[in-house]
């Protein structure tokens, strides 16, 4: 009966009840790398968080309006925000991710010069905002307007691409936990972004990570900011609903 109910009625609930089987990339890292992430004085991502705090309070644009001018203290105003992104953007009637929202605020509300994707400033502001949700569960909005993009994200996740003709699902669903050469294949949960990757020697966004996996299979990546990436981000967030945010994380 319970199983039948599971299958027929409560599939989404039962899936989230399986949350303990989902693993963050954190759990499969070496103890030293875990310690580095957990100690703010050792976590290199905190440098971007600090820079982000400065930018949050810095006047920008013709009116000299800082982010804090509209939002006040990030500790309270930004708490939980990263946990529910990507979200629906009323202005563009399209899904938008956290970095996209910050870019939009900057351009439309501050009238300041745009911050390109993966620029130090945008990474810093994103890291600072995401830091305010550390420890909170990922809570994707229930907004049905996001459903088509989520479905597209899922399709992109299971679609084979590149000269090596591999899909995300083949590695991250079917082979997670095994080793691809020296790397343990994680389950691809977006729990830590933006994060400091030792291999990059820098902070990077989830889109940078997706790009890396795409070029790894010798596929043509999408342009930064592309709707395809936002769709994959939406699907990954849904798949990780309830997992704990750890931004800024550290990864090997």
């Amino acid at each position, binding site marked *: 009966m319970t199983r039948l109910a599971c299958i027929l009625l409560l599939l989404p609930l039962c899936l989230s009840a399986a949350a303990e089987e989902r693993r963050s990339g954190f759990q499969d890292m070496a103890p030293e790398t875990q310690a580095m992430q957990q100690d703010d004085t050792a976590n290199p991502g905190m440098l971007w968080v600090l820079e982000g705090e400065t930018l949050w309070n810095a006047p920008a644009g013709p009116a000299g309006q800082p982010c804090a001018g509209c939002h006040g203290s990030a500790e309270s105003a930004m708490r939980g925000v990263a946990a529910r992104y990507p979200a629906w953007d009323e202005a563009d009637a399209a899904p938008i991710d956290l970095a996209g929202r910050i870019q939009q605020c900057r351009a439309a509300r501050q009238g300041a010069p745009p911050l390109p994707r993966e620029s130090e400033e945008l990474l810093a502001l994103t890291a600072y905002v995401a830091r305010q949700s550390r420890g909170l569960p990922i809570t994707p909005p229930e907004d049905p307007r996001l459903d088509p993009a989520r479905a597209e994200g899922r399709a992109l996740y299971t679609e084979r691409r590149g000269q090596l003709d591999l899909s995300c699902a083949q590695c991250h669903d079917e082979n997670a936990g*095994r080793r691809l050469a020296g790397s343990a294949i994680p389950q691809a949960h977006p729990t830590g972004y933006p994060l400091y990757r030792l291999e990059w020697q820098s902070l990077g966004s989830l889109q940078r990570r997706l790009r890396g996996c795409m070029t790894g299979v010798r596929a043509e990546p999408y342009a930064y900011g592309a709707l395809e990436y936002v769709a994959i981000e939406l699907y990954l967030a849904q798949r990780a609903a309830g997992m704990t945010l750890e931004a800024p994380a550290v990864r090997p």
Partner: protein
Amino acid sequence: MNRKRASLALLLLAPLAAAAREEGLPEPLTATPGDAVRGRAIVADRQRGLCLLCHTAPIPEERFQGNLAPDLAGAGSRWTEAQLRLRLVDSRRLNPDSLMPSYYRTEGLHRVAPAFAGRTVLSAQEIEDVVAYLLTLKEERP
């Protein structure tokens, strides 16, 4: 049921897969016979062969070998030359869901990066070299 009818049924159901499992690709892709020494170097090379990303092989000097796929040790006694050639050329003809990339196929691919578009992962001669090397791997790992 006699064998002929059984194999006829198989052929009708999955012509390519069934025939291929029997015979593989007996025709070499080039006139020059494969060179096992060059083949070993290709298998060991993570940028060219990529094999060790997924497989382990008896190539002790290469650390960090993958474990997503069968050990290549013993491959030369498990499979014939023709079967090995097919597994390299296009293992998806045997198993459409295979993780193993097709090393000699350019059709049916999606969003290939421009630098690799229209190119096979290995050249015909490289495939022959790798087949020659795999045939030397007679011993299963203890």
